[in-house]
């Protein structure tokens, strides 16, 4: 069956973004050095257009390309998220690239390609398609992690990410093969009726391997080890992308696989997730306590947040899925904002990344410090921020599934995290500015990102109803 027009509509954002990415790559050699800035503008434009184009699949819900792709509310929600992330990352990157004199064109093309991969992951209805999306996004981000070619750390980051990430995708693919071998199909919605009877060893093994692969991608314990090194070494705007977009897409895929294809899994699976949630929270938070580098601190904090997300996962309910979707949105805003500021303050070569370097920032650059405080307080989960409402939803989902002790452990972790988030705030406000770091003027692109993320955090924190309703709709569309 040949794909019809509507099939293309349902994949419109990805098609547009990929086309723009290719165009940028093609145009790159023909532009003079001082004109390369246009490539960045084109990239931002492409992301904005793709973001707007998410409205198209929302308008034409349904399956596309013989059922490989599905444009349901879930996929629209996640795609909106990843394209918004791409747009903000692109805005935040321009200044960074210029300052470090890094090539512009390839960067924007790669971010676009990575986002295409995430979009495909979010809308895949078939395991091989999931794999393709995973690979598109992973390979682009491997390159991005090593984008500062002459920096040792960046190389290390890319190498590590590539090796471990390849392992993870291999695991995933192996799992897919086993499931296919056992059941004879890779379509998610067709797996469900076939696995209704308790699956055999192959299915269990396959699902286990798939879960390992995905757990790598979302950095859940015990597969989190790569995160701090990769996040630290990658250029900070790339770290912003890594910790938000691909993570959101991987969580989305995991949700879809678990709840669409394997809805009647045994309790043992969720007990594993329960355990992984506890470990992920504790490992992330305890390790973050002793960090002196802001990037590493945020890396460990992102591990901890995966733990919170898994708490709602273990709740195994639609409410839990909705809570996760809401949290992904909130989490993306705060992490993007925080990493943008780290990138902005880092200076050429990222030399200003220790917590101690932020001394007195609150009095030196009040607006930037205010935003960073807001992000950190939101990550901590203080009321009136998106992080708080998100956490309330996660805990609520856990409590409704009678996971009272898991919820208690989650808030104990929140308490632990207060120590390190407040440490950064303390440094910014309770210390005197250092002479070696003069104030850095905020370029308009970075300012725009900060404004959007800060406003978004407050909006979600004070008026969460709309987004939550929408997330709940998306969660319902999974079944």
């Amino acid at each position, binding site marked *: 069956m040949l794909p019809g027009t509507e099939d293309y509509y349902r994949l419109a954002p990805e098609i547009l973004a990929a086309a723009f990415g290719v165009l940028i790559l093609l145009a790159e050699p023909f532009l003079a050095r001082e004109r390369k800035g246009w490539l960045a503008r084109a990239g931002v434009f492409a992301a904005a257009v793709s973001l707007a184009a998410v409205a198209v699949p929302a308008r034409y819900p349904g399956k596309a390309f013989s059922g490989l792709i599905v444009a349901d509310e879930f996929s629209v929600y996640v795609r909106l998220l990843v394209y918004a992330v791409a747009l903000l990352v692109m805005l935040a990157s321009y200044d960074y690239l210029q300052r470090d004199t890094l090539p512009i064109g390839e960067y924007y093309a790669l971010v676009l390609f990575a986002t295409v991969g995430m979009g495909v992951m979010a809308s895949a209805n078939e395991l091989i398609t999931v794999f393709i999306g995973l690979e598109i996004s992973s390979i682009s981000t491997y390159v991005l992690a090593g984008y500062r070619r002459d920096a040792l750390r960046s190389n290390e980051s890319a190498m590590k990410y590539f090796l471990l990430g390849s392992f993870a995708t291999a695991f995933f693919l192996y799992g897919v093969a086993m499931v296919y071998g056992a059941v004879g199909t890779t379509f998610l919605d067709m797996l469900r009726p076939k696995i209704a009877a308790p699956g055999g060893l192959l299915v269990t093994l396959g699902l286990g391997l798939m879960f390992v692969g995905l757990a790598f991608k979302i950095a859940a314990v015990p597969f989190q080890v790569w995160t701090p090194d990769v996040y630290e070494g990658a250029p900070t705007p790339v770290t912003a992308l890594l910790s938000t977009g691909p993570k959101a897409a991987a969580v989305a895929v995991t949700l879809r696989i678990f709840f669409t294809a394997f809805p009647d899994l045994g309790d043992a699976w969720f007990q594993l997730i329960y355990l992984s949630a506890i470990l992920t929270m504790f490992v992330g938070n305890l390790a973050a306590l002793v960090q002196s580098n802001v990037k590493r601190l945020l890396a460990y904090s992102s591990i901890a947040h995966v733990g919170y997300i898994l708490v709602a996962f273990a709740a195994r*309910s639609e409410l839990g899925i*909705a809570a996760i979707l809401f949290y992904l949105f909130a989490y993306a805003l705060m992490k993007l904002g925080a990493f943008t500021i780290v990138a902005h303050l880092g200076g050429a070569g990222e030399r200003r990344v220790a917590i101690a370097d932020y001394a007195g920032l609150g009095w030196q650059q009040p607006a930037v410090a205010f935003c960073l405080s807001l992000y950190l307080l939101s990550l901590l989960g203080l009321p009136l921020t998106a992080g708080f409402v998100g956490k309330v939803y996660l*805990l*609520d989902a856990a409590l409704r*599934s009678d996971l009272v002790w898991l*919820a208690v452990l989650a808030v104990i972790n929140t308490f632990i995290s207060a120590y390190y988030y*407040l440490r950064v705030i303390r440094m910014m406000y309770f210390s005197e500015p250092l002479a070696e770091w003069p104030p850095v003027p905020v370029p308009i692109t970075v300012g725009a990102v900060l404004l959007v993320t800060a406003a978004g955090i407050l909006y979600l924190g004070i008026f969460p109803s709309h987004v939550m309703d929408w997330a709940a709709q998306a969660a319902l569309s999974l079944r």
Partner: protein
Amino acid sequence: MNIGYLLTVITFLPTLAALGLLVMRREDHVWIRRFALTAALAEFALSLLLVPGFSADFPGYQMVERRPWITSPPIAYHLGVDGISLFLVLLTTFLTPLAMLASWKSIEKHVREFFLMLLVLETGMIGVFLALDLFLFFVFWEVMLVPMYFLIGVWGHERRVYAAFKFVLFTMAGSVLMLVAILWLYTLTGTFDLPAIQALLRSGLKPLGETPELLLFGAFFIAFAIKVPLFPLHTWLPDAHVEAPTAGSVILAGILLKMGTYGMLRFCLPLFPQAAKTLAPYIAVLAIIGILYGALVAMVQPDLKKLIAYSSVSHLGFVVLGIFAFNAISIQGAIYQMLNHGVSTGALFLLAGMLYDRRHTHLIGEFGGLATPMPVFSAFFLYICLSSLGLPMLNGFVGEFLILAGTFQTNIAWAAFAAVGVILSALYLLWAYQRAFFGGVTNEKNSALPDATARERVILATLAVVILWMGIASPMFTSRMRASTNHLLQQMEREGPANAAVPRDSSAPRTIVLPTGRAVQLPATGRTGQP
């Protein structure tokens, strides 16, 4: 008189003023101070409107405002005032301008931010006292931490960073558990609305069962006990007080500590009466230990602020004891003592701050014979010490008397031990006073200290008048508390089969309603919390 939005206005006027400060020039210290003070005074004037609008005989919440806020889960913006919270709100609006006046000269660094923090803090505190939705309450409760953290950490003394940290971590340790408790209560009852939960629990329609009730009570109680602070959770308090700037200490002692005891009255007692009754003996013992321990430790403090801080531990012990005696008189006394302590201890911290402004030390040993160079100041100091130790005619006496009289009816031993605290408080306050003010001037630096300035006299005279007034005209206050106190005690009696431990049937299929309104059947498998 149309007072439909009075509570909202009172709650958010300070924040509005804080935003106004943001548009002022950072260097314009004089006008920043004037503007902030004007706003705080206007706030006080507005809050006085609560009194004529308040009907003393009505036991429930008054001037209620209720508007849906978040649809999923259903959270309402729900404010209301009753006899318990009325005067606490007034106390807040009364102490805030005084704290500002006290910081007039002593805050030179980041002036705008300082007053901004004070104003934001005021909103938080008032919100805590007025919120009738558990979620809203928690929002105010937590948000308030931030300005206090900054007040201690930025404008405090030498070990301010440590003290600020300790303050926040202690408070958060309690409040995160309270958050789980609030959410669990929501899961069990389906609402965050305090009156609704109260009615549901009381009617016996949603019996909690013994263990959940104890756990829930514990989670709320620990959060409040840390704030009070109840022995042995008090260790953050001396540090926070000593390191905080004067205004911070005044607000901390005057109002923040009251949020703990207020929370016990508002949540622990009416929501979980059975657990409260079960645990009351233990809590009372802790309170009595706090009374005696606080007093004894206060006695040996070389640092004036630490002395006042430990005296707070002692005084708040009385309040907790009064609450957990479950007696109408003792609870009224407890509420009254909350106000007294706010005014008297606030005043003591203001006095300590004035001394600090002159000598930059809080050590009692550095002073001696201050009555000679500073007669007016010394007179005020003595007067306020007397009020704090409970001299008849002044405010402290009324509260302590009511608490002891009420407790006596419940348990004679409790009252007897607690009464020792009254004697001890006279001992440590007067002894400290004697060392600092009587005799000849022992330290050369003190011989030429200026007496109270006009600004300081205004502050102290205002407090003195209020202290005297509260000592003489206590019925003006207690008559407005009576109905609510009796109502509270009624709430503690369950209508349904008392504490009928109906376990939730975990094997039956359960239905949950998603925020979107869709009901979902959960499978009947016993999915418990243990892996």
